[in-house]
């Protein structure tokens, strides 16, 4: 028998997923938001009180703008089909443009059809950042733990524990900073249980995390009814952290209130994102942590103490999430109530995945969820044609689509969730 040459390759076209999604978006925008949309105009204010100078109001005629945006999106969809035919992938920035256009068109559609056709874009964004604060801390906690190889489902419990402890300590000591520190300790305590059971006793990390959430919810709920509600003046009247206004800078329209008019926790958030990112990717500590999360045995053969690294990272994650939880009772809300964290720990978990286990990615993902959350609040106020119950679903829908859209493309630390046991 003679030798044959290399058999020819056949072309396998890339997945149809992206073109189909882009086409669906284009059709929805063009027909539903455009042709069937309201012909009133949507007004977006860019200024908030105390701004240094005035920016003009943005006005979009509802129907006309959405028909234009719809046509642009149809163009993009057609382009993506053509790209697929050439076996090429659609560039990520084009998908990003499509997403931004879709959000814009949605905003124009709801606002132009609402009872009040004016919303403040400045407060929409500023509010989004505020709502994102606990999510950012929660997701940083998730990043710290998972990068070291421990899945932290207990973020919700850490946020809740932090919120409760902060309220209690701040009320008792009349010192908001004592509350902040106590919140960090509370988060660390939740983490210690997680670390002990998942690292030392090799219990399934998911199960420990879920149990911890239930445990913290139970304890805080019990203490709330038995202690706090007995004497709310004494136990549940936390002193709030001051909002620090940086003069001059905070008067810049739109970005001023976001960056330079925050509570201490708000500023800490920006700092924490940077520190965790820098630590993980630029330092010796980070290299070791990531090695432990990716290939613990390799780290072990190089003399790195795998379980010790994991233990400290989980503890650190707990502190971060605990501080995030204090945001509820030291900044956002007057007093502690049951389940004050409202499932945000789970959204933070989604932000970890959506942000691809990167602190900055997780921060941006948390901002997106915060945006959806705040949008829902504002749109309910202005009275949209969409029932408010559907609006309330929005942050969760965004979460599901964001995470589902990434399945198969996003790869977490290889050893996350797997206990390391020496033979």
């Amino acid at each position, binding site marked *: 028998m003679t030798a044959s040459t*290399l058999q020819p390759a056949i072309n396998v076209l890339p997945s149809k997923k992206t073109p189909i999604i882009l086409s669906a978006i284009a059709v929805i925008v063009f027909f539903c938001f455009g042709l069937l949309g309201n012909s009133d105009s949507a007004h977006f204010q860019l200024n908030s009180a105390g701004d240094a100078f005035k920016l003009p109001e943005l006005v979009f005629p509802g129907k006309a703008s959405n028909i234009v945006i719809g046509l642009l999106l149809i163009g993009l969809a057609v382009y993506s089909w053509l790209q697929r035919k050439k076996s090429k992938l659609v560039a990520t920035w084009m998908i990003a443009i499509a997403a931004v256009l879709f959000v814009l068109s949605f905003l124009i559609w709801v606002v132009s059809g609402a009872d009040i056709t004016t919303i403040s874009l400045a407060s929409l964004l500023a509010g989004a950042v505020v709502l994102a604060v606990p999510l950012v801390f929660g997701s940083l906690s998730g990043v710290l733990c998972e990068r070291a190889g421990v899945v932290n489902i207990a973020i919700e419990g850490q946020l809740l524990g932090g919120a409760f402890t902060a309220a209690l300590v701040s009320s008792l000591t009349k010192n908001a900073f004592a509350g902040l520190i106590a919140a960090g300790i509370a988060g660390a305590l939740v983490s210690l249980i997680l670390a002990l059971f998942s690292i030392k006793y090799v219990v399934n990390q998911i199960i420990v995390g879920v149990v911890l959430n239930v445990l913290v919810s139970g304890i805080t709920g019990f203490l709330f009814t038995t202690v706090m509600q007995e004497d709310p003046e004494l136990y549940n009247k936390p002193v709030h952290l001051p909002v620090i206004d940086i003069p001059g800078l905070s008067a810049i329209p739109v970005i001023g209130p976001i960056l330079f008019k925050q509570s201490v926790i708000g500023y800490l958030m920006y700092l924490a994102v940077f520190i965790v990112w820098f630590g993980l990717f630029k330092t010796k500590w980070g290299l*070791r942590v990531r090695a432990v999360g990716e290939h613990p045995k390799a*780290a072990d053969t190089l003399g790195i103490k795998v379980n010790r690294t994991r233990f400290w990272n989980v503890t650190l994650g707990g502190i971060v999430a605990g501080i995030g939880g204090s945001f509820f009772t030291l900044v956002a809300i007057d007093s502690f109530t049951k389940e004050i964290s409202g499932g945000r720990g789970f959204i933070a978990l989604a932000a970890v995945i959506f942000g691809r286990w990167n602190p900055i990615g997780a921060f941006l993902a948390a901002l997106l969820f915060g945006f959806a959350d705040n949008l829902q609040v504002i749109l309910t106020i202005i009275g949209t044609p969409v029932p408010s119950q559907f609006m309330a679903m929005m942050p969760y829908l965004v979460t599901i689509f964001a995470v589902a859209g990434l399945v198969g493309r996003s790869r977490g630390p290889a050893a996350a969730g797997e206990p390391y046991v020496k033979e």
Partner: protein
Amino acid sequence: MKLELRGISKAFGSFYANKNIDLMVDDAQIHCLLGENGAGKSTLMNVLYGLYQPTEGEILLDGKPVEFSGPGDAMAAGIGMVHQHFMLVPVFTVAENIALGAETTKAGGVLDLQDTRKKIREISDRYSFDVDPDAIVEDLPVGVQQRVEIIKALVREAKILILDEPTAVLTPQETDELLEIMRQLKANGTSIVFISHKLREVRAVSDVITVIRRGEVIDSVSPESSTTELANLMVGRAVELNLNKAPATPGDAVLQVKDLTVVDPAGTTTLNSVTFDIHEGEILAVAGVQGNGQTELTEAILGTQPVTAGSVKLAGEELVGKSVKQVLRSGLGFVPEDRSVHGLVTEFSIEENLVLDLYDRAPFGKGISMNLDAIKKNATAQIKDFDVRTDNPLNPASSLSGGNQQKVVMARELSRDLKLFIASQPTRGVDVGSIEFLHRRIVAERDKGTPVMIVSTELDEVMELADRIAVLYKGRINGIVPGNTSREVLGLMMAGVSAEEAAEQAEFTKSDNEPVEAAPAGERSENQEGEGQ
């Protein structure tokens, strides 16, 4: 540096993986540990590297006793180890992997990889490794990853380098290059402990060969010993390894695979338009370095891997799109590559494992009931026929050794009337005695007229069994060549060189240069005798 192991024993529970082992490695010596899979070579090295604590005995470096509580201590003492399964973080760059654990830092613990990069380039240049410090490890070929491991040890100034089955994952050319690197390291004063069960390599490069069997040192011999001698020492009895199979008498092309393509969920084409036939009464061996589409090919035929395009016809009947059960019923006997995961339910008894895919058919099953007598009778007959070493067919399959487990799988699959027999890595991790047995069974099935497909990463096995050889490279068939094609040509083809070019290059090397390795005359026939695995 001189290394001495004195009376090392390592017990796991009541089982001794190493028993009273004495070993002496001289300065700048290549000392080979030869033994079958499971003989206790890797355990011994893990003890030396501080991963395991010895139950008894002591380790001496340059005459001084040392104790290692972990790999960190061993490294500090000048011992480096290249594990069989690389200890590299796949998503890190080469420099990050090498820096890990011994990082150079600037103020505040900030990583300084410049220094590491410089060291990598130095070593890379000295041994002409050609390793880019900034490449991501998972993108590198296995051979290069292995060099990264060696650099990792050298950067830590290892005086003694342990190489644990380093050639298992390499193409023959890469293996020759590695042997050359080992000689250079030795010339620079590094002692090497080389763990292997491949006689050809061991004889080519070692200064001393220590044979280990069942956890004990059997003998230390010189590399001049013949392969038969070494094989006998390794197995513990005289082994007859030459298969002497009759030439194939191929009939009709029963299996016709056409343009078979598999794309994995991540969008990578793992099997790319593969086309081949297998005739009645012939063995087609699929050769290739691990991870070039072998798993996908066999699983696509079986039906456990979704097929993107192409067709598989068995005696004219299309298999693609059928359920696994239908495929098996149409006459496929299938030995999966990982017997303990996919070939057996290890918690089930041997008896039950022997009817895993037959339990619902006569004589074993009728309606909702099973005929336990028939199952028992079948087990007794099969155990005898395949010489499965067990005292009770009701023992769990997990109680068997690798070779006996494989016999159970093979017995089950061959007990039906087959139209096609596929065996993936039929003798991986199997002792030499069982290999001989399993190979004979495969050839006997061929002689019954069944088309046989063998997938193996062991070139020796491929050359021993094959009537024709198809080489898989990056998911494509890089040529189908006759079964007597030389090792050199196959090696080049496994590295992506086309069949014609490979033949020319091999010819050129033979006439112009000595092969890198001092291969004795009559290499090929000797290989067949000596290297069962």
